């Protein structure tokens, strides 16, 4: 689709999702804000796609913008110390520098939209994230893990489906 840049705001610089190596499965990563998936997903029943809104339309699921956090946290739980940190980022108009938790192996193409739109539940690949107080990658993305699912669902297991 052709678009005009008349309205489009400045596109902030964005780190490309660096595709590097595999990942050790258990190491917990410290984050600038102690965000809890458990509170948001399990306690308040917020759909994953509310925050990770590009999961249905893009290769990347997306990390919510500070603006999106503030939709709720302008009014909700504003006195909590961690929420105050969000407000501070918002006030300074600075992005939150989250640390990457989930790693995709090298030379791999993984379009979220294809999985999500085919009805693969988020928890299939991100098990336990709904119960986690600190985000952690419990499932290592080995080729066997991917292939099991592809075989079960009868979708392509051609090398070029994922590796380019």
């Amino acid at each position: 689709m052709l678009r005009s840049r008349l309205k489009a705001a400045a596109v902030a610089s964005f780190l490309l999702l660096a595709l590097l190596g595999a990942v050790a499965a258990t190491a917990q990563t410290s984050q600038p804000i102690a965000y809890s998936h458990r509170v948001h997903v399990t306690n308040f029943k917020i759909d994953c796609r509310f925050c990770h809104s590009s999961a249905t339309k893009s290769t990347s699921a997306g990390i919510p913008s500070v603006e999106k956090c503030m939709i709720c946290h302008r009014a909700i739980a504003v006195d909590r110390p961690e929420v105050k940190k969000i407000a501070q980022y918002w006030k300074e108009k600075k992005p939150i520098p989250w640390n990457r938790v989930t790693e995709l192996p090298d030379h791999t193409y993984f379009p979220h939209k294809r999985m999500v739109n085919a009805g693969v539940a988020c928890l299939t690949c991100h098990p336990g994230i709904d119960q986690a107080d600190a985000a952690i990658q419990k499932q290592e993305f080995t080729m066997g893990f991917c292939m099991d699912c592809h075989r079960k669902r009868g979708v392509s297991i051609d090398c070029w489906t994922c590796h380019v």
Partner: protein
Amino acid sequence: MKHRWAMAIDLDRCTGCGACVVACTAENNIPVIGEEEAAKGRLMHWIRVNRYWEEENPGARATYLPVPCQHCQRAPCEIVCPVYATYHSEDGLNAMVYNRCIGTRYCSNNCPYSVRVFNWYDYRWEKPLDEQLSPDLSVRSRGVMEKCTFCIQRIRRVKDKAAGEGRKIRDGEVQPACVQTCPPGALIFGDLEDPDSAISRLFKDPRRFRLFEHLGTEPHVVYLKRRKGAGA
């Protein structure tokens, strides 16, 4: 949905301008190697334009022949790879899996069309030239073979789009970078599984021939001979 991707190259249209070569370089993260390496015959282009001389002046002629990977049905490169890094994809493409490649270069040695290129070094993109790198495909590292993929990332983009809209892929919707840019329209791409596609018609064109047909490699690239004569 089954596909069999194929390309036709109309030599009656090709002018030899090289737009395909640079379009491919831009699309596929192909490194620039410099004069010294080029002197060793190591150009990394996935498509090249051969130029053939015939006779000398007066009466000299030149003919151009763009040569991408021929995506052979019976590919000589596939059978010699000890680690199955090159194989035949379900869409009939001759595929290369970088993760598996250990750099024996047997495949390139066995390719009659010399279309496979080898990463002799880890080629670098000086900052900020790396900003241009396509996020759709990897930057290959030292010791890995690479070659034309018929722009698999562009095929996939169209597949994704068609799947999202719940429809079949339209004829002419998939265009590798070289086909997309070719000014005189000498390159035509399509799906042989679709009997009504332009490519299916061109595969029956009386002008068709394939490179080194006698080798029996059954390429998925067919060439259309230049025609002679005025008016009609």
